[in-house]
């Protein structure tokens, strides 16, 4: 029980720091001072105290979107090891539940966007479901590679203690390839440049952000918070894969993990600073490309 609480506490307290780090990195690249690192926390607090403005068109489905967006990463995080800290809940086949929970969130976010009846948000919803159904096979191939290497079927086993040995063995190149693929999936799923721009408020260019234009107050806060949690949860996969060491001492392990997350946030900031957004028609091409790369990784471990 204490373990479960620690898991949730780390997730809930640390997650909003990541968007702050990304924003600060981008600001430094642009030669600006940038907002304080804790700005996302202030934003959440302010949104929490605000009132609502609702569109006349909307129904209860509109409020389901933010709620699902917040609950799903929380639940998914319970299945996931945080670095070397084991997952509080773990069973055979939980990796499928993990993937499908995020699909549920997508369903309701997109439905909430359509609930406003705005053509911009319809556009965003259409793009969101399009790109993520292309990202899904990549994720599955990556999980297949990890399952093949670990011999288990739970996320705990997939990201278990065998990883350092796997890197050293012949499977190293395959792991490297899926690390790249998972990074691309992370950028797509968290609506980051080069696939989506979370900052421009020009609706036509956006995917994810445009879906939440009509949300306000605490509901919008829930969306921002949920997005930060999702970034941390999906980022954990990458961090564990790239820094697979276990020291055996939990505090040290936790520090490695959190440090890895911060590094990841800086990396995302760097990518966002040095790249431009891709044209929309290029996004599917990149995603099909990563699917092929992950197939290649699978072939490497199957041969």
């Amino acid at each position, binding site marked *: 029980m204490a373990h479960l609480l620690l898991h949730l506490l780390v997730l809930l307290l640390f997650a909003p720091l990541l968007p702050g780090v990304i924003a600060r990195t981008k600001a430094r690249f642009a030669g600006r001072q940038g907002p304080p690192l804790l700005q996302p926390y202030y934003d959440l607090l302010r949104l929490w105290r605000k009132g609502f403005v609702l569109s006349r068109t909307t129904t209860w489905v509109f409020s*389901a979107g933010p709620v699902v967006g917040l609950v799903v990463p929380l639940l998914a995080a319970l299945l996931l090891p945080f670095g070397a800290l084991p997952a509080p809940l773990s069973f055979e086949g939980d990796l499928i539940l993990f993937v499908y929970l995020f699909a549920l969130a997508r369903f309701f976010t997109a439905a909430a966007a359509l609930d*406003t009846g705005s053509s911009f948000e319809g556009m965003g919803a259409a793009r969101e479901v399009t790109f993520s159904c292309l990202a899904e096979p990549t994720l599955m191939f990556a999980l*297949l590679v990890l399952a093949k290497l670990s011999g288990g079927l739970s996320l705990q086993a997939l990201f278990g203690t065998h990883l350092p040995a796997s890197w050293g063995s012949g499977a190293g190149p395959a792991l490297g390839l899926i690390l790249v693929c998972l990074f691309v999936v992370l950028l797509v799923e968290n609506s980051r440049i080069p696939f989506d721009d979370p900052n421009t408020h020009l609706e036509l260019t956006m995917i994810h952000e445009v879906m939440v234009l009509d949300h306000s107050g605490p509901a919008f806060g829930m969306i921002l918070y949920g997005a930060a949690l999702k970034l941390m949860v999906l980022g954990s996969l990458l961090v564990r894969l790239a820094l697979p060491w276990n020291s055996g001492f939990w505090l040290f392990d936790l520090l490695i993990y959190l440090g890895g997350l911060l590094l990841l946030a800086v990396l995302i900031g760097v990518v966002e600073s040095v790249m431009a957004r891709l044209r929309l028609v290029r996004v599917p091409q990149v995603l099909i490309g990563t699917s092929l790369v992950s197939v290649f990784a699978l072939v490497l471990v199957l041969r």
Partner: protein
Amino acid sequence: MGWFVAGLLLLGFSGVPGLFAARSGGGAEKLACLLVWAGAACGTLAVWEVLARGVPLVLDLPWAIPGGALALRVDALAAVFLLPLFLVAASGALYGLAYWPQRAHPANGRSFRLFFGLISAGVMLLLSAANSLLFLLAWELMALSGFFLITTEEHKSEAREAGFIYLVATHTGTLALFALFALLELAAGSLLFPGAGSLALKGGQATAIFLLALFGFGLKAGLVPLHIWLPGAHAAAPSHASALLSGVMIKTGIYGLTRLTSFFAEIPPWWGATLLALGILSGILGVALALAQHDLKRLLAYHSVENIGIIALGLGMALLGRSYGVEALVALGLAGALLHVVNHGLFKSLLFLSAGAVIHATGTREIDHYGGLLKVQPWTGALFLGGAVAISGLPPFNGFVSEWLLYLGAFRAAQAEDQGLVAALLVAPALALIGGLALACFVKVFGLAFLGAPRSEAARHAHEAPSMMLAPMGALLFACAWIGLLPQTLVPLLHQAVAHWGAVSGSAHLASPLAPLSWITALAWVLLLALALGVWWLRRRARGAARVETWGCGYALPSARMQYSASSFADFLVRLLRFGLWSERHGGAPRGLFPAPGQFASHTPDLVLDRGLRPAFSGLAWLFRRMRALIQNGLSACYLLYVALTLIVLLLLGGFF
């Protein structure tokens, strides 16, 4: 067995009393509904008996037909297919009282009820038949009743056409089945079905049997490219008939394949691989075609093609497992496929019934004419949403559980050492892609039909369905939620069914992979409660919030026509999948500085039927017309020449032999 036969008779004759009642009277329809309910209850009792005792129910009676015997066997494998039949038939009968009342349809109400009962009885008989002749009899009973259900609205040319295509397709399939059972009789020595795993066949005969089964049963199930009859037929029938056709009838094809493959002692690896390939093709093409449709019922019909593809994936995986002796794969593949049969029966019927409620209220099947229906039809909308979440395979509903089993099988295949199992591993990414596309499709349907602003007067003035229609839909959603939230309750049924498939030790391998189902249950409950609590809290906090117009980037006069439409929502994906869809696009972007009013329309015909078979057959018809004009030219001299030529040919042939 008594309960089963009683159920069979009650269902079969449920529509008969109505034939003697007045065309406009309302009493006979209630009687018919009551008889269907009684029949379904008797049948459920019989199935309960099978499952509780663990041994099949058997009935053997002599039959005057040569080679025939009135042999019925109800085992757990049949039970999996029977349970959704009873639920769907019973809920459809109740739904029909409000949806298709006798006084509103004096011309066809009585015949509809007759064939509704007959098709249910036909499916029931088919699922229990243990004799080839009896099986074929039941098959035809079901097929012909299906034809009359599809052509219920025979005054519409669309229904007549769909019925005709269906008739051609089903009888082509029956032809293959005749050949199949003749071959089976040669191999097994009797028209009785052989026991599971008792047929040691090799070489050409086994290949012929399998290919005939794949064609005959695949045509009924709607596997791509044999799905040609399905979209039109399901769209044309009244909604509760569509539910029965799509939820139950097409599964008899899957039942046939499952039963037939159980006879064989050994399965060549290519059988499973073929079924897997067809499953991937059906799944992806089915959902892609569904995505491109604007007609609500056609869209749902294409989703049946997709789900049949998913079931075929499971069956293919189980067959591969048997070829390579991997018991866990057999157990997971078959259990996943069978559970998906039940699940699809439930959520597809739910979706068809709620689509019927929408069509009933708005009078149109075009998704682009709906919008904002959740406000006027809150219950229908919520039920449809439940069905949409279930069919997209999302937790916490039932679609997720069956797909979870298939994924588990695919991951096991990845870990197995055998090279031949690589094909089974492809199930995971294929299912992921199918699931993603299905999600996109159901976000589109639910979002555009029920959310946003009304796009037509009909949608603005729609009314909620009567409780007589809502109650059966509620029962179906309850069943979906039951399987999703308490999947362990179905484990004994799956165990027995897998055992009856001829993989006795396979059911033992089902125990360990199914153990985590209790975790899934727990998490599903947490998810459901957290969501309910969250939405309740947010709604409460938002009470009294300012209500304004949707933000239109400063544009002050938004109209419902500015919303995203069904075409535009799916456009990106449809264009990505254009190599498999070949959509027609008319009109497009307005050009120039002062553009004239623009028009855009897209239409996606069926790849096999409209692009392949129709042109091919009309070409053949043209060819034969030309030939007839040439040959039947009315000149007696020519006719005499034909006679003379025939005579010469015959004489020559006589000389040779």
